[in-house]
Structures are given as C-alpha cells and as structure tokens.
C-alpha cells in the first residue's frame, strides 16, 4: 500500500481522453521508422521507394525496365528538392492510383508469400506523406496502362482517416505508352558520398543488370547501362509452411478457413501437407479427422500446434524464389566495377522460420578496383541495395566472420574486411526478408542466414584463391629461372677460388644444366632447424 495518496484522478476521468490513432498519424510522427531520420537520408529514401516500386512493377509485368530519376533543387527554398521518377512499367489502373499512393498499409504483396522488393504497402505512400509534411505540397502522379489514356493526379493523404485526398485530376488522350511517373517536392539535403543517391543507383544497376537507369542529378547526368538482356525468372507465391506458422497464426487460420474438415484445412491451406502428413498430424493430436476447424479453440489449438511440430514434413517449395543467378551477378559487377576477375555463387535455397530464402555472393578482384584500400561490401535484399546500418546487419556480420587470410587475401585483423582490390557482393532473396526495421537497411541475424552467407563466401573465397594463386605461380616460375641465371656467375667465382678450378668452365656447365632443364629446381626448406638461441658469437 502506498504511504500517501494524493488526489486520485478517477478512471472515468482518464477514460475520456482515449481515442483511436490512424496509422498515417502514427507514421507522420514516427517518420524515422520509415527512413526519414534526417534530411540527407530522406532524399535517398524517397528515391529508393519509387525506384523499388518501378522495378517490382516492371518485373511482375515481364518488362525490361527503363527508369529515369531526376533530383533538382526547388526554386528559392533552401533544403528543398523536386524529385521525379519515371518508369516503363504496366502503370496503375485509375481506380487504384489514389490508394497505392495515398493510403498507408495498402498493397498487393503483404498477404502473399512472394519474393518482391516492396512488402508492406507502406513505402511509396510513406514518401507521399513525407512530401506533404515537409513541403505542404501534393505529389503529382502520372499513369497510363497503355490504353492511350494518360491520367494525371495531384494527391495528398488525409492522415486522420489514412485515405487519399485527390486535389486535381485530369485525363489526356492520344499518347500510347505505359508506365508511372511520380513527382514530389520534399525537404532534403543533397550530398555526394558513400551513401548518396548516385551510389544507390549504381548499386541498383549492379543487382539489376537488366535495368537501364538514367540519373539527372543537381550537378551531373549519369547513365547506368543495361548489361544483361533477360529478366530473372518470375517468383511464385506460396502458401505458408506448417513449421513456420506460429500458434497465434494457426489459431486465426483455423477460424477463417473455408475448409470444412481439419484434414482439408491442413492440406489446402498449407504447403507440403499431403493426405498422409495430414492424417499423421491428426493422429498425433488425437483429433477426429472430420472435426470442423472452426471448432478447434483454446487448449486444443496448442495440441494441434504441438502435433504439427512433431510430424516430419518436407521443406517448403523453393521455386518461389528468383535469385539473380551467377551469370547475371557477374555481368552486373563486371559492368559497374570493371574488375579483372569475378566469381559468383548462388546457394541452394534454405529456410528460416518457415520462410524460404536464398543467398548469393560474389567476389570481384583486381582491374579498376582500388588496390590499397579495404574491400568494399555491397549488401542487397531482393535486389535492393542496403546502404545504412551495416553494423547491425546479418550479411555484414557473416562477412566479418570469414577468415579471409585463408583465401590468400590480406586482412588487417581477424574481424576486418580483407585489404586489396576486392569487392564483396552479398544478396539475400526471400519471400519475407527479415529487416531489423521498417527503413529496410539491415537484415536480422537469423543463424540460418549467417550460415548460408558464410558457406557461399567460403566457396567463392576458394575459387578466388585458386585464381589468385595461379596468377602468382606463373610469375614465380619465370622468376626462378632468371634468379639462377644471376646466381651462377657469383657461385662460379667463389667456387673457383675455393677449389682452384676454372671459373668460366664452372659457369658454363651450370648454365647448361639450367638451360637444358637437367636439374629439377626445388623449393624445399633446408631442414626444420629449431629456433636457436643466439648464445655465442
């Protein structure tokens, strides 16, 4: 019991203040959760969200992407930029434009297990929200689906309702094209450094070598060329795997399923559950096969859940993933980094918490890569470059756990990146990438992911070390011959003085032996002499 009670405010008084909060309001106040922590990063985030959407749309529609990005300072206002992104994707039907751009948590991918860049329907509408918050201005959307009609809209978000507010709308007819163009005015600061917009686009070109990206920045124009002609295969969406479903989700699935029997529920709502697996689960859980899923509740859910864990099931289908594959990665890295040698490794898919994922890595070596500096690490998730928070990222962590020295590379200390003309590329493709935050910059440290990255890097490391060693050895053999040629006159002279024999005779005989290859040139330590103490002079 408290020592002293002051005037107690009643629960009734308190309850009067309580209200619902819209998700737009929430993110408006917590914009750092979406990657708008500061003015520099905010510019990049806006570009990223739009480019990711464009690439996703093109790939889904099987269109080889052409993307134009423009970043220009707004007239007369400091720290204000006009950003536009245009693609040649399928466009968006007029009815959906408002909600895609003007409603948070609206999208096509959230309820599917499918590999894509965007996941939650929060990226591009978050950018619109940021634009209106910092410039007070609507975003301008232009869309056409190829039917000869081009729709223009000026759009904002009504944050109280989390609904689009369309300020202006018009249709032009005549021009046949398809795609989306979005233009926003936002507060931001433009810098050119490691985490700049051009660097992000360069890395995007690296991991999307089938895309052409034209960048028109405040001070420069850059064209990132297409280095591959074909899109990667289409990823497929899958049903959840029973072993990746948590008890709470299982309970909800039971409640909302269309299946009439438990067996039917198990076989139709999950992947990898056939008739026999379903029977086995029901047997272990001691249920009736024909019980209606809707009648399973309370402690019975727990029983079913435990039964599922006990039954062996094959892994989820892995063809849902669409990795870049080794060839595409090599093409992308060659085009963007111009190294002398690239090795790429695409690992077989694996599973974390029921979610299939696949790791790809590449090591680029030599050529135009800087020779004296520490290796550069490029991280990607579903082909999107990760620019920030390397320190918290599972991909970076796995890279730091590799003993690079083992592969003939220099390394300042055991947890450091290798030193020399090396670039490291790591890509995770997954139906559900476990980011550590909604700003999508770091991958959570699941042991399965770290393990796969390490295995891939080790394999790539071995291949790179074979290349590096071969190069080294070819040089060495030639050096040996020339070395002995230089030693021979010296040895002949000393030996002549020691033996009294003729110097020139000794020399010509030794040269003969060398030239005619009569002697196998060895390279073996004299003997394992133990370390001697220097005792006497």
């Amino acid at each position: 019991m408290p020592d002293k009670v002051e005037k107690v405010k009643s629960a009734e008084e308190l309850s009067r203040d309580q209200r619902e909060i819209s998700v737009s309001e929430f993110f408006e106040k917590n914009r750092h959760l979406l990657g708008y922590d500061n003015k520099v990063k905010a510019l990049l985030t806006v570009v990223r969200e739009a480019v990711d959407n464009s690439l996703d749309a093109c790939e889904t529609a099987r269109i080889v992407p052409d993307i134009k990005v423009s970043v220009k300072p707004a007239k007369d206002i400091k720290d204000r930029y006009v950003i536009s992104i245009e693609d040649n994707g399928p466009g968006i039907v007029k009815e959906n434009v408002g909600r895609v751009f003007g409603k948070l948590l609206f999208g096509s991918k959230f309820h599917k297990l499918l590999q894509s860049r965007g996941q939650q329907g929060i990226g591009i509408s978050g950018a619109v929200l940021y634009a209106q918050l910092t410039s007070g201005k609507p975003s301008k959307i232009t869309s056409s689906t190829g039917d000869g009609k081009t729709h223009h809209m000026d759009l904002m978000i009504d944050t109280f309702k989390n609904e689009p507010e369309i300020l202006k709308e018009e249709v032009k007819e005549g021009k046949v094209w398809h795609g989306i163009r979005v233009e926003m005015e936002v507060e931001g600061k433009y810098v050119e450094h490691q985490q700049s917009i051009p660097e992000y686009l360069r890395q995007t070109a690296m991991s999307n070598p089938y895309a052409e990206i034209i960048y028109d920045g405040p001070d420069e124009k850059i064209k990132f060329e297409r280095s591959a002609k074909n899109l990667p295969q289409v990823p497929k969406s899958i049903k959840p795997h029973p072993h990746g479903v948590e008890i709470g989700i299982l309970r909800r699935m039971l409640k909302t399923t269309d299946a009439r029997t438990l067996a039917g529920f198990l076989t139709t709502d999950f992947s990898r559950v056939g008739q026999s697996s379903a029977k086995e689960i029901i047997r272990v859980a001691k249920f009736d096969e024909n019980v209606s899923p809707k009648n399973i509740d309370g402690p019975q859910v727990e029983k079913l859940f435990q039964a599922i864990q006990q039954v062996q099931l094959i892994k989820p289908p892995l063809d849902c993933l669409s990795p870049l594959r080794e060839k595409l990665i090599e093409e992308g890295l060659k085009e963007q980094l111009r190294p002398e040698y690239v090795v790429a490794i695409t690992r077989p898919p694996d599973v974390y918490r029921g979610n299939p994922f696949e790791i790809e890595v590449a090591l680029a070596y030599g050529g135009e890569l800087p020779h004296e500096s520490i290796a550069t690490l490029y991280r990607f998730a579903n082909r999107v470059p990760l620019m920030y928070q390397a320190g918290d990222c599972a991909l970076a962590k796995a890279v730091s756990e590799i003993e690079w020295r083992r592969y003939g590379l220099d390394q300042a200390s055991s947890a450091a990146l290798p030193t020399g003309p090396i670039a490291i590329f790591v890509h995770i493709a997954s139906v559900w990438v476990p980011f550590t935050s909604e700003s999508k910059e770091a991958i959570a440290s699941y042991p399965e992911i770290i393990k796969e990255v390490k295995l891939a890097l080790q394999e790539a490391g071995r291949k790179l070390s074979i290349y590096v060693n071969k190069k080294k050895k070819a040089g060495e053999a030639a050096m040996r011959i020339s070395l002995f040629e230089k030693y021979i006159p010296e040895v002949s002279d000393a030996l002549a003085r020691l033996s009294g024999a003729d110097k020139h005779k000794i020399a010509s005989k030794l040269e003969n032996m060398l030239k005619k290859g009569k002697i196998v040139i060895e390279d073996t330590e004299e003997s394992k002499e133990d370390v001697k103490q220097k005792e006497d002079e």
Partner: protein
Amino acid sequence: MAGEAVKKLDNLGKKLVKDIDEEKNPSMTIPLRALSNVVFDRQDKTLRIGDKTFVRSFFNVAHARKFLQTVEVGAISKDLLNNNKHASLRDVFYMAKRTIPNTKINVVDEQQESDNAVEDLEMITGSWREQLHINANKLGAVAGNVTVEDAGDTIDWSKLGSGGWSIPSNIEELKFKKVDAKYVIYMEKAAVWERLNEDKVWKKLNCIIISSQGKATRGIRRMLQILSTQYKLPIYVLTDFDPWGIYIYSVLKFGSINLAHISDRLSVPDARFLGITADDIEKYDLKKHFINFKDVDFSRLEQIGSYDWFKNNKDWQRQFKMMKDWKAKAEIQALSARGISFISDKYLPDKIKNEDWLD
C-alpha cells in the same frame, strides 16, 4: 694446422666441382646444429652434436643464396689461411658482402648470415673457427703468477699493475711458460675483477683471476680449458645469482648448443660454480638486494632447469627452486653492501676453504 684447414676447404671445393662435372645438383651435407641434434655426453659431461644432417643444394630456390654464402665464406677463409692473416667475423661479413649484378640481392645482408656460413664451414670441414683464421671477439683481463709466450713476447701476468693482460680473441699460438697458481677464479664482471685485483687476491690466495664482461669469449674459454686440462687447476666460476649467470657457467662447463660441434675445444667439464648461490643469499643476508624477476627471467630459468645436465642434479634443482620461490635474483656486487672488500677478505677465502661450491 693451417695446412690441414686449407686441405679440407680444398676438398669441399673439389667435391662441388665434381657434382657439376657429373651434371648433378651441387650439394653439401652439413650436420644439423639444432637443439634436436645436440646430445649431452654424460661420460664427458659435454654437449656434442648428433648424427642428423641436412643437404644444401644450389638448384633449390630456398637454398641457392645460402649455398653461395657458404662457398663464398669458404673462399675467404682459404685466402686468409694462404696469407696467414686473421679476420674478425665482422671483417668476413664485409669481405663477403656485395650486390649480385642486375639484382637487388646481396650475397649477405646481415652479419648473422656470414656467421652462420662460418659455423657451417666449421661443421663441414671439422675445423674450428680459429683454425679457419676467423677470430671471435676480444674481451677480458687476467692476472696471476703466470708467465706466457705469445706472438714472440714473454708476458708476466703478475706484473701488469691495475690493468692486467688483455686476453686476445685467439690464443691458439699462446704458450704457458710458468704457471704458479692453485686455482682459477673466472668472473662475469670486469668491476669485480678490479676489486679483486686492487685487493691483490690473486697474490694472497695464489690463484689466477680472469674476467670478461658477460659471457666468456671463445679465447677465454679456450684458456680456461687449457688451465684445467693441462695444468689441472680447479676452475671456479663467480657470477650473479640469476638464470643468466648460471647459463654462463653452464656454457663454460658443458658447452653450448651452437658450438656443440667444437665442445672438445672449448668446454671445461671440471669447472665449479662458486657463487652467488641461494645459500650465499641466506647466509650473507642479501635478500634485501633482490631484483624482482621479470617474465623473461622465469622462462629462462624454466629452460635452464630442464637442461639434461641440470635436470637430475638435486643440488642445482634446489637452487632453481629457491630462485623461483623468491621470484628474484641478486648480483655479485650486492656483497658490497657488507663492505667493499668483503668479497676479497671473507667471501672468497671462506667459500674455497669450506669447499662450498656447486658442481
């Protein structure tokens, strides 16, 4: 003797030329100078080199330079012998040093390399360094009732004032004319020698006093060996109470790993360790002058304690144990705390009278 060394060097040269004539990789076989190939001869109480050898060939990337160094130093030595000159190890280094044309490779970069070649040649030819006319360092002084002949002079060691005779690096040519002494005291410190000389200890106790500074040079070791074996004088060693002092004694008595191949010529198996011992420390109350052990002292002590010749020697193990327990060492000069001439008037006479030494 010089003639014999020349012949052995000749043989080496001829063997290598023969290899070349037969289109074989010219190579020499060298006994291995390493801890793994040193044996302690319990009979003679001396370190000796074992049977292991290794081969050094010219056409081997890892050997070529060392091969050249060995042949080059062999040629230099032959030259010295033919001209009846002596050179120091440093001289030999410079005589061998040059850059191989069109390379950045020197025949020798560091003296360690030519020194190693000298040791290799000692092994190959069975001649020791002095016989190859390559001298070690010169250091140390001696006094006592002794007369020697050296380089044409007759020298009386009792008539050299406060300085004494400076011991040459090479005493192969030295002849003893008169030796009137009951024993020899060898000490590691020149300052202690001056103390004993000022106190005329060699006269009072009728002995020879010899010092170097630190480890005994080869000249001194050879001299001690001759005095021990030919004149049957007991040799007493006086060093600091620390692993390094004991090591000086150990090398003097048993030989060293590096020079195990010429232990015959250098070691003094009958040498005795006079002090400072752990018992001296207690008896003369020297603990207050302890110097604390450092890590390196512990590891050195560990090493010495495990030597074959100390391993099963209870008296020595007792010394090591006390040193280890105390975690400390003490210098000879600590005796000065008892009075400046305490060492001359009390310590040495008592120790010798009471036969208070370690063997």
